[in-house]
């Protein structure tokens, strides 16, 4: 049995002749919380739409729970919970009607969990979806996605448009539910602190390519930002591979290098720097370095 719940192979997508996704490959193993990061328009939502079969790919293959995304059978769909960007619920329906519809169409429905969530969120059943605030819509969407006890949960920017308090409340509940039930989760966001809190594997999309795909801890460990001072003018080329970014100002050079190891350390020391200090990097710093337009393509895997 394949342990990868999500499998994306050489995914290519063109919109009006513009390449949005350029050969994306990644896999999400069972039980993993995968954080897919990227700037606005990087293609995160497109990947999710292709995975859910809402959008046809130009090339490549994507599978969810071992079924091809382009023809997901109802049985497989019933095992996937989805919180879409912008919470595309049926706006003209009353909350109670939408809940009834979802319940009628679902293969399984956890009434106990759903009622608990509805009570926690205090969602008004008699109001129309369009009359709810964005925060309430997000909560309703999460409740509906969780009620089917999904094996795979796909969250596409679920906290988009929420204020800080609502975002914190939403994430805490999501984390609580996720930790208790050990699901596989694909979590897309450009709010890095959210992803950092829950993800254990990270993928970073930049210019249509997946430039990072590795565990979060490994990413933090292997991407290094160094401030190097040379006795004279800094050399133009350090002959190091996988330099993500490099800035030179007189004797000072600030470089960001992927897959930092003793070999690279040794190469750097041949230039006899006066000092070499490491600048601590958060996920946000790594993300900014990786998605800079001038950044070299990076493969951290």
């Amino acid at each position, binding site marked *: 049995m394949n342990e990868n719940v999500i499998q994306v192979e050489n995914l290519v997508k063109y919109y009006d002749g513009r390449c949005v996704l350029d050969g994306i490959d990644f896999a999400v193993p069972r039980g993993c919380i995968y954080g897919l990061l990227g700037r606005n328009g990087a293609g995160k939502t497109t990947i999710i739409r292709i995975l859910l079969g*809402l*959008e*046809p790919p130009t090339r490549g293959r994507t599978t969810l729970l071992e079924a091809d995304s382009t023809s997901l059978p109802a*049985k497989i*769909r019933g095992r996937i919970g989805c919180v879409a960007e912008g919470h*595309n619920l049926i706006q003209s329906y009353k909350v109670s009607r939408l809940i009834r*519809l979802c319940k*009628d*169409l679902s293969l399984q429905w956890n009434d106990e969990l759903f009622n608990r969530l509805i009570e926690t969120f205090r969602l008004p059943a008699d109001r129309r979806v369009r009359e709810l605030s964005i925060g309430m819509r997000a909560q309703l969407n999460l409740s509906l996605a969780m009620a089917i006890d999904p094996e795979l949960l796909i969250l596409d920017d679920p906290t988009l448009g929420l204020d800080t308090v609502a975002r914190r409340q939403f994430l805490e509940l999501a984390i609580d539910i996720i930790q208790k039930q050990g699901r596989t989760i694909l979590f897309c966001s450009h709010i890095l602190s959210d992803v950092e809190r829950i993800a254990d594997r990270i993928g970073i999309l930049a210019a249509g390519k997946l430039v990072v795909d590795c565990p979060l801890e490994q990413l933090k460990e292997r991407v290094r930002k160094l401030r190097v001072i040379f006795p004279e003018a800094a050399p133009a080329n350090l002959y190091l591979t996988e330099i993500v970014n490099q800035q030179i100002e007189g004797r000072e050079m600030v470089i960001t290098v992927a897959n930092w190891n003793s070999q690279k350390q040794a190469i750097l020391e041949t230039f006899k720097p006066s000092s070499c200090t490491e600048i601590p990097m958060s996920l946000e710093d790594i993300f900014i370095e990786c998605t800079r337009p001038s950044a070299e393509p990076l493969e951290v895997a």
Partner: protein
Amino acid sequence: MFALIKREIQDHLVYFIAAAVFSALLVLVLVEAVFKYDSRNPPVISISLGVAFAAIVTLGICGMGASQMYLDKSRRISAFLSTLPVSRSRILLARITAGILAILILLVPLAITAIFLLRLFTPPIPLYSGMVWEIFTATFLLALACYCIGLQTGWNSSAITPSLGGLGLTCIFVPLVVVKGLGPEIMVILASFIAASLFRTWHNFSSTSL
């Protein structure tokens, strides 16, 4: 499947109510026309009313198909439903089933009334019962063809050519039926058109982005 059909009916309840109301009105017109029939002095007003109702009904059925598809697209209903354990083919099948139900609500009372009136006013020969069945089938196919045009027009509402094409096809079909009559030839033409139109709708609906 039942939940999807129920959703379609609830969302387009106005068309079902309108179908029932028009059916009742057409039955009244039909009964009045038969009872007041005089070969030397035909009931022109009743016949004119019947023709006007039929035209409104044709456009209404076309409008129902267009409204179902247009609202789906603009409100992204199928995009939401597709995240539930429902395939696109099922969504479309439920939609068409609801459309057929609306047509039947309109036509079945008319057919029953016609059979009843024929029994009252014509000699009991098989010619007449066959005629009612033929007229009912052809009218049903005509209504379904108009509904299919509506489905296509609603889905392609952003493009002018398909929308005008739909209107043009409706304008061709109705006179064609008037000229050819509701016979087997027209049934074959309508059935072929419906099959092609439904296939095209299914292909468009299941292959495009939601």
